[in-house]
């Protein structure tokens, strides 16, 4: 999967906005949205929130976890533990990126949040690389990775599986007797 596709999926997440216009319930294939009352918070998907925000039709209320204190806690927890810790949202990276890009004026301490999420992300990616490395080194056949988000899986998944395939080929080629077998792959 492309990162863009993952981002597309993330855009289905709901966020709260405060519209500055009035509109009755709108009916879409994915479900009904609204009604929109000026000044009254309403939950909408990210894609709509961003669209409205770009047209200056709403004010965004950041998700609860998008808070410096909470993210610091998460980052510290992530650094402390060897395994992956559960993330506040399955699309935390994408949401941070989207919301901070388009609605940073509605998010207090946006820069700090960006840094914190990036720190967390880096920590997790480092863990992922480390575990992939040990996985390959020890020639394990299976491993369990909990609490990984879709985006994280995607950054490593394709490359890792292909690399494993190649290595398998190379390894089987090392044993001349079975070389003919490996051609089948």
């Amino acid at each position, binding site marked *: 999967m492309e990162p863009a596709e993952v981002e597309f999926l993330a855009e289905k997440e709901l966020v709260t906005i405060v519209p*500055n216009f*009035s509109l009755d319930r709108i009916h879409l294939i994915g479900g009904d949205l609204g009604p929109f009352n000026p000044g009254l918070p309403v939950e909408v998907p990210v894609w709509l929130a961003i669209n409205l925000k770009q047209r200056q039709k709403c004010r965004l209320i950041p998700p609860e976890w998008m808070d410096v204190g909470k993210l610091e806690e998460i980052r510290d927890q992530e650094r402390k533990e060897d395994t992956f810790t559960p993330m506040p949202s399955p699309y935390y990276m994408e949401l941070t990126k989207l919301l901070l890009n388009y609605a940073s004026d509605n998010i207090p301490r946006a820069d700090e949040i960006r840094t914190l999420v990036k720190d967390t992300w880096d920590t997790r990616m480092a863990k992922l690389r480390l575990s992939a490395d040990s996985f390959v080194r020890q020639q394990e056949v299976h491993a369990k990775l909990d609490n990984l988000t879709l985006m994280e899986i995607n950054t490593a998944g394709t490359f890792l599986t292909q690399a494993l395939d190649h290595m398998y080929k190379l390894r089987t080629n090392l044993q001349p007797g079975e070389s003919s077998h490996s051609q089948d792959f």
Partner: protein
Amino acid sequence: MPSRQKPMRYGHTEGHTDVFFDDTGSCIVTCGSDGDVRIWENLDDDDPKSINVGEKAFSCALKGGKLVTAVSNNTVQMHTFPEGDPDGILTRFTAHANHVTFSPDGTRVAAGSSDFMIKVVEVTDSSKQKTFRGHDAPVLSLSFDPKDVYLASASCDGSVRVWNLADQTCTTSWLLLQKCNDVINAKSICRLAWQPGTGKLLAVPVDKVVELFRRETWDNQFKLSDASITQPLNVVVWSPCEQFLAAASVDGNIVVWNVETQQCIERMKHEKKYSICGLAWHPKHRQIAYTDTEGNLGLLENIGAAEKPNDKVGAAVAKDYNDLFDGDDDDYLNGDMVEPPSSPKTGDNEDDADDLVQPPGHVRRAVIDDDDDNSLDIGLIKASSGLLEKEDDGDDQTGGFSALPPSSTQQPLYDGPMPTPKQKPFQSGSTPVHLMHRFMVWNSVGIIRCYNDEQDNAIDIEFHDTSVHHATHLPNSLSHTMADLSTEAILLACESTEELASKLHCIHFGSWDANKEWTVDMPKDEEIEAICLGQGWAACATTALLVRVFTVGGVQKEIFSLPGPVVSMAGHGEQLMVVYHRGTGFDGDQCLGVQLMELGMKKRQILHGDPLSLTRKSYLVWVGFSAEGTPCYVDSEGIVRMLNRGLGNTWIPVCNTREHCKGKYDHYWVVGIHENPQQLRCIPCKGARFPPTLPRPAVAILPFKLPYCQVATEKGQMEEQYWRSVLFHSHVDYLSKNGYEFDENAKNQAVKEQQELLMKLFALSCKLEREFRCVELADLMTPSVVNLAIKYSSRSRRLNLAQRLGEVAVEKASGLAAAAAAQEDEEEEEDFRQRPNAGYSSSATNWGQLPGRNVQQDQEVEDAEEADACEEAEETPEVQQEKEPNHFSKGVASAEVTTPKPALVASSSRGRVNPFKVSSSKKDPVVPSANILDNMTKYSKKTSLSGSRAVNKQNPPVIKPLTPKPKTKQALAASFFQPRTPATNPAEKTVEEREEKAENESQETKVTAQENTENRRPKTGFQMWLEENRANILTDNPDLNEAEVIKEGMSRFRMLTSEERMVWTEKARGGRVSDSAEDKKRKRPTAEEDEVKKSQEQKSEDTNVSKKSKPLDASTNNRLSAFAFKQS
């Protein structure tokens, strides 16, 4: 405890502090290591005046309007007080001074410095200085002899010396203290003090005791000590009456002794045990102010008040009757009796109010509860009354307190209800004025914020709906403190300053001319206290107890006097609500009155200064109107009350916001109330009563809940729901009565919902065998639902009940007829919609229909329908809940074709058809289109009425601009039978085609349509014809049922020539001439319509073009929708 310790408050940054009262005791002066001198009005003063005197202030002294401070640049400065202007430098040292003090007459200042020197300087002439040398270490503190002969000083070298002021020699010296090298290393700052007045004794804090030395002999008179003192004492002060001596220790203990008796009368502990370094006795009252090294300021009240009783009788009493009380409060009895009238300002604080009231109650309880032990009680009462007398004597003796107001000595005799300080005027939806960043108003239109800091003094206006107006930023040069906001104007007001009068400033952005602003100056000495905006008008209430009304353009209109000082005002549409003080409340209650008036065409007062019901010990925090125009208010206990117009304009609590709070100190700050949908919009505030401006608070929605009993049970729940529904839709009646437009759909919805709930309650009562209750419920039902109830009860074999219900139904019908008859006479009243059977009224041709007429047909059709419905209902009482809405749509709203699917209607009424919407019932596409037609015309009618307002009609959350409907009947009728608007044109064509089709191919549908509409219409020519010819038809085809008879009749009628039909039509019209003139007026259009219809039919296809311009009439519409109805 008899004395009260107020919670400490932050005054300075941490470090050495000093505290004083000014000469009159009106304010507290503190200085601290932040270099500021602060002047506090009282302990609750949130905004003390600050004078910056230097980098660090070590000590300060105040007398006769001069403030002397010892600051870190080694000088002793003088400032004027209370202005705080620098008034020169008195003297300089080579190190900083540690203590400065005034001589008793205020002419000289003594300063002791870290360079071991003491200087005494004339205040008026700083060149006249006397220097006292002799200490071998930094001087800690100084004290002037009240007779101006000696000066006492303490130093780090451990010595306390007495100097002769005249010749600057050391009179005597004691080595009392521990030696140290600097002030910061000293165990105690050793603030010694000379007894005021006679100057007989000099008090010196020496470690854990206070040593008192006699003047002239300089011998150690006695020592004062107390077991509670475990750490060295820092400060000693005398009370102004010379009787008491207070000392404070480095671990935060304050002890007060009576010097004569050498008894300790007061012990107090600092709440955090910080070292107390400043202590000051109020010049008049029994108060001690103290500061600690962390910069906190505290106040101790009623010092020594309970001294006598405690020491003598009180102690005995407490001992004897110890079992009557818990050990802790054994002296509360005396305490509360001698409690001075806790100054009114403290009354703001709820806790204080509680303190005030509780003890007497407690006494009473103690006395009453123990009635098994009467002798004890009598003894107790005697003892306490004896105490009172003695207390008085004691007070007389203490001459030093003669300055006390006389009331305080009489106070003990009065322990009745205490008057509550009146709450100050406020603007609804504003946060306190003293805040630098505050909300001036937050309402359903927008937010006005006010910034008042160093950089900026400005007002920010933001609209929730940007289509009303764009956000605005105004400079706040006049320092406005009040604001209100409506969809057409911004209203601001400021208090008067020395030069400028109090001003009302209006920005009428809705104006179409270029001049959008106007201001009005109030007369001299008149301050604006509250303002509000309505539709087309603005109002302000002033200190002159006047309410002034202006037009929104600035024309002065009505003025009227208020019976009391205003508390708050609110406006909505043409309604103005004013809340004011009716009198003095007691025991924490406010005594408020409310006036509600209409400032529209018909000016009248609705609430004539009625008392406003508030929760006990609460005050008003929000006053306003719901978006639909019902007055509401909120008190400090979080109870939201709403005006119940249905019950003689009483107030009913609709929500308790505190129930929704998580924490004890959380509150909800109300910003708006909406009745349809039922929403209480408010902002959750954690640990505060109001929200900060940043981060921007988010609005939350709370549901309403009437405080009905047993809402946990099904019955209670439904009762609550029913009455809530009734209450929250009563605004519709009000609106219709006052000629406003309103959402008819919502009204019908509400009636349906209410009847549904009644029916459920009815079924529940039936199940519980409570037949009497069933009849009571039936009283609340509309006649058609009563019929349903009758069916229900008869099917469930409750014949007795059914019979009684039948009586109810008859009663209702007769009552209805009487009401309708009365209505005919009463031409002005248009409230036919209020009739219980309002469900019928939405069909256009209902006018003037008398309930006795057409009963035959009505009954037949309805019975058929209801029988179906009842069968459904009875099969499965459990499933009833799901099914009921369906048969209600048939039964209650009867053949209401226009509102089969509310959601659908709502969406289609805006002209947007939802391509994705999954409709729950499989409907022919024709149905929605028919609905669109009906509702579109309705909608466009509304818009044409309300002018250019583009506000969404189906969206009540926005305050609707309410415009009165045309009042005359003709106009009303016209609006009903009005040619439908061109908006229907494209649809019309298809309608025509369909009509043709219907005519040619399926006569049947048409006939049923006719039949359906017939029920609700006055008789037409066809009907009259049918009545005459029914017999004929029946004889021809005896096996026909009713519907088929009509069908047959229809086709026969069609075969008549147009002349004949004309005759019948004329007949129908003529028959109605006998009706009242009013009736005739209403019905003529219908008759004419018939003609139009017929001529249309005749001309048929060839006139298609002309027909396009000809509007679709109501009957066509009806037939069409009926056709659709049939299809579904």
